[in-house]
């Protein structure tokens, strides 16, 4: 037998609840992040007013629980996909940053070799290479500054 007592200036109330009912109530309250004593307190203090305003909420709770479970499943799937894709993207992204730097170095070497050998230097791709270097390094700089 559990005892729950509530005192006020005018009267004292004592409630006795069977262990089994108390344990079930306490477990349910804990699942909802509540303290059973607060629930009991409210039940006693508001015993005249506490009635289901919108009818019995249990069927509604069952259907909303199913809806929440469905949404949680969708949320988990999307979050997992997003986490995997973020990993893949950053791997590709750093590959781009590295490759664009390597490309500019090779382009500079190519220009020097053209000059040294008297070959005509073709700068067709240079602007694109420079643009890619800036694109991936500027973004990288922003990410480093943000601490990402």
């Amino acid at each position, binding site marked *: 037998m559990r005892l729950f007592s509530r005192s006020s200036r005018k009267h004292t109330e004592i409630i006795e609840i069977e262990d089994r009912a108390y344990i079930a109530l306490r477990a349910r309250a804990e699942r909802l992040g509540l303290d059973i004593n607060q629930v009991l307190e409210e039940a*006693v203090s508001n015993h005249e007013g*506490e009635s289901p305003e919108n009818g*019995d909420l249990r069927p509604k709770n069952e259907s*909303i629980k199913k809806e929440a479970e469905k949404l949680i499943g969708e949320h988990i799937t999307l979050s997992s996909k997003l986490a995997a894709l973020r990993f893949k*993207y950053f791997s590709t992204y750093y590959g781009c940053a590295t490759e664009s730097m390597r*490309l500019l170095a*090779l*382009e500079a070497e190519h220009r020097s070799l053209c000059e040294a050998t008297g070959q005509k230097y073709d700068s067709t791709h240079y602007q694109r290479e420079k643009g890619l270097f800036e694109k*991936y390094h500027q973004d990288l700089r922003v990410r480093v500054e943000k601490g990402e």
Partner: protein
Amino acid sequence: MKIKLIKSKSPHGRRQELHEIDIVEKCEIILDRIEHEQRSSQVDRLKSEIPKLKAELNDLESRQHEAETDLKWMEGRVDELVNRNRELLAILRGSSQ
């Protein structure tokens, strides 16, 4: 389970019954209400987060596709330049001998 709410002292010095209530039922009603509030709020939160996740996923897929295209082009261009520079180096070595 029915319980009796009792005044400890009546005007005549006796215990006085006030009400008889089913405490378990009252608690269940309170818990039903709180569960309903919590679940409704959880559903609202999920409903607002899921479209954001979908949008983020679409955006990232598009950026991934773009980065893959860029990387493929750069890898091809690196190979091209490595070969071309090797040829030019051979010319340079040939001319210096």
